[in-house]
């Protein structure tokens, strides 16, 4: 865990993980917003387990990176902003499951328009992931304690 290469390897995997994840989220959300409308949503959502796998990779590598330099992260404003975005992402996902919005999206067939609620969800999701990318990038510029 303390070998010099563990940090760079984990950060590289973290970077690949978030790219795969954001790519899949972008494709799904853009389809909900009307891009590539001939794509039916139910089979397109088969991409989601891969996003979940990428997320797990990010979680594990993120925890390893953090554990190597814990105080730096605890005192980093950008880190907590990133965590806030992730909590909101989780809340939004939970909410669309509870309200049945996920199921409504499953029913959107080829060429059909997604419901307005699902478009709103897609915009919020895209903005939150841009937030995760933004604050993740800003972490290195908030290196000092606050």
């Amino acid at each position, binding site marked *: 865990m303390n070998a*010099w290469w563990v940090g760079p390897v984990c950060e*590289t995997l973290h970077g690949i993980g978030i790219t795969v994840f954001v*790519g899949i989220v*972008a*494709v799904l959300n853009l389809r909900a917003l009307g891009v590539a*409308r001939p794509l039916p949503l139910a089979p397109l959502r*088969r991409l989601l387990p891969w996003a979940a796998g990428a997320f797990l990779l990010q979680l594990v590598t993120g925890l390893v990176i953090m554990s190597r330099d814990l105080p730096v992260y605890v005192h980093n404003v950008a880190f907590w902003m990133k965590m806030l975005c992730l909590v909101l992402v989780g809340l939004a996902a939970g909410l669309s499951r509870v309200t049945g919005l996920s199921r409504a999206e499953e029913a959107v067939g080829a060429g059909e328009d997604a419901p307005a609620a699902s478009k709103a969800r897609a915009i919020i999701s895209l903005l939150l992931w841009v937030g995760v990318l933004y604050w993740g990038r800003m972490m290195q510029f908030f290196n000092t304690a606050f």
Partner: protein
Amino acid sequence: MAFLEWLEATSFSTWLKLSPSIWAYPSVLFLHTLGLSAAAGCSLALDLRLLGVARATPLAPYERFFPLMWTGFWISVLTGAVLVAADATTAVTNPFFSLKLALIALGIGVAVPIRRALRAHQGSEPVPRAVWWLAIASMVAWCGAIAAAHATAYLDPAALASAPNIGGVQ
């Protein structure tokens, strides 16, 4: 080398690197990240589809994501050029940087025939073997480019020779 030194010493480069403003280096770096996420991220999602994930979706409509991918690509090229100018002498001479550029060239090189294959694809016929290999090449290229980008930043050969103290928050 004289050109690289001049580039690094221009008032724009020094402003970008030394300005404490959030609009200088941090914002350019963020735009670079955003652009490459759109380009490489959507490419990787499309590659997964070509390799058989979500295979019940028709292929042709995926072509609509290409304008977004190209926009993201050009944003990262422009911001990347600015970032490189600011660190010209160290960045351009770093062998991992050349590797990164080569892998990006591969990624773009296979994206063109992939787009052509999407256009030509009809209904639910299986993905041709050649296109399957293009998707593999695309995945290798984009994941490799991300790895090479990290290596450029963290494994600077000169820095590594003197002090292998890297990793963690930079």
